[in-house]
């Protein structure tokens, strides 16, 4: 699949923002129930929530850039009964409203009951938006690399890992040690790395593979009946190949689905992902000091690493249209 930069940018930034909002509201809920002491001091909460919301809003606005006809974009909130994209659009609006009110509740020191309610709504809406984003991809059956539960799991863990890193960065920027947040961020980073490894193991396996012979309906040979004078063995070898694609130059389908990445380039991007999204943030969480330059670097490295991860997510996806263009298998 063609990696559209606006979509990569959207899912990475809004993922981090949503993870941060979910973490902040969850921490608040735990603190209010008395289970732990709030690791972020109250005066900092509205600022942290505003930064997280800014990530979400930047991501959401960049998502409209990939629309070929954005004037009809408002209609995307109308088909929530069936479409995950429509659900995402709706719940993202709910989330932005809830998170704004929740930030205001902290700012204006609202009654704890109201704040509790808004924290719960923000948490659920952030999870809902993250899940809908992932399900847009995971619901597509023609792409076996996307049609798996590992996709929503990865989006959830990577969103929370980068969001927790963002919260840890905010805490350390103002000179706090932020031990609880750092432990949470490290745990999410390690879990997300494990999910990525499992995802790549899965897509390298044979699960759900479709061949060109199945796609054009000759998996059991061209003719149903055996041909007299030909052995059964020779009929079973019915490898199909594209003879002619029927058009001289590029088509929409080729531009959208037939993007092929060299193994060398893929390896390079994978290194960017491992170092940027996992190694540098973990090193900073473990050895970093409470100063803002390190925090800024760690969050930036994480965003670049996750952009590489999302690029790979698109580059690795092999749509069944490729079979009709001569790919032997998906």
């Amino acid at each position: 699949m063609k990696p559209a930069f606006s979509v990569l940018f959207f899912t990475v930034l809004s993922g981090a923002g949503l993870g941060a909002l979910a973490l902040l509201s969850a921490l608040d809920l735990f603190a209010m129930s008395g289970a732990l002491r709030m690791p972020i001091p109250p005066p900092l909460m509205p600022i942290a929530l505003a930064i997280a919301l800014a990530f979400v809003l930047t991501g959401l606005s960049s998502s409209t850039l990939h629309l070929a006809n954005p004037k009809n974009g408002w209609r995307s909130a109308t088909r929530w009964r069936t479409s995950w994209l429509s659900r995402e659009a709706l719940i993202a609006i709910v989330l932005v409203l809830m998170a704004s009110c929740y930030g205001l509740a902290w700012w204006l020191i609202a009654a704890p009951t109201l704040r509790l309610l808004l924290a719960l709504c923000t948490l659920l809406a952030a999870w809902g938006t993250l899940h809908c984003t992932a399900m847009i991809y995971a619901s597509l059956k023609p792409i076996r690399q996307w049609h798996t539960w590992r996709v929503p799991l990865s989006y959830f863990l990577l969103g929370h890992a980068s969001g927790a890193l963002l919260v840890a960065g905010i805490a350390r920027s103002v000179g706090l040690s932020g031990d609880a947040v750092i432990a949470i961020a490290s745990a999410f980073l390690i879990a997300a790395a494990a999910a990525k490894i499992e995802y790549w193991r899965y897509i390298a396996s044979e699960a759900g593979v479709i061949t060109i012979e199945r796609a054009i309906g000759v998996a059991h040979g061209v003719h149903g009946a055996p041909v007299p004078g030909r052995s059964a063995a020779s009929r079973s070898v019915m490898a199909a190949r594209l003879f002619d694609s029927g058009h001289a130059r590029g088509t929409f389908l080729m531009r959208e689905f037939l993007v092929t990445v060299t193994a060398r380039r893929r390896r390079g991007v994978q290194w960017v992902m491992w170092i940027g999204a996992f190694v540098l943030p973990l090193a900073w969480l473990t050895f970093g000091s409470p100063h803002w330059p390190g925090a800024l670097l760690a969050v930036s490295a994480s965003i670049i690493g996750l952009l590489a991860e999302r690029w790979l997510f698109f580059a690795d996806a092999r749509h069944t249209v490729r079979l009709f263009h001569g790919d032997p298998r998906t």
Partner: protein
Amino acid sequence: MKLGLVIDLDTCVGCHACATACKEWNGSSAISGPLSDYDPYGAEPSGVWFNRVRHYEVGQYPDSKTINFPMSCLHCEDAACVTVCPTGASYKRADGIVLVDQDKCMGCNLCAWACPYGARELDEESGCMKKCTLCVDRIDNITLPEAERQPACVLACPTHARHFGDFDDPQSNVSKLTAERGGFKLLDELGYAPVNRYLPPRAPPAVATAAPASESAVRGEGALSRLVRLARQTLAR
């Protein structure tokens, strides 16, 4: 009503008449608007087509076969392109035809991703998704003679490899052809229940193949007969 096409892979000769007839009719159709061409007379001509014919080679010689494979929208019963559409631009009519409302599409490409067959193409000029309409503006058009109320591709096919009809009617030509010839659904395992069916190539009649002449026999032939053989081979080319 479940309108759709039967495409005969046995008789299709891969001439692209269906694809060009489609482009001609739908290029000026009010249903999907013009099918844009980009750089039509330049070095990299490209554009929107509803119907594309690809050609495959299957098997190893001498058990090999060329299959010409026209593909357009299969008007699935469980059309994922309609399910995923966030704006409601994609819809399915009561007679089974899947259409795109050009006034509602926002060009997000999600329906093209959801379609396993590559039946949808984005028109980069209008920014809207385009797809086969099964020529609704022909089959609904009561001003046309009844015999012409069929998709343009079906009327254009010189080998009658394309048939249009109602799959809900067991007596229709398409239902009968599907039953007689073992018509199959493309990528049925994905569960979209495509309406269009493809008829597999028929088994060729058995032909007795002569044993090839042995080397010694060829070497031993006279100069005249060798000349005649060479002349025959040249003419045959």
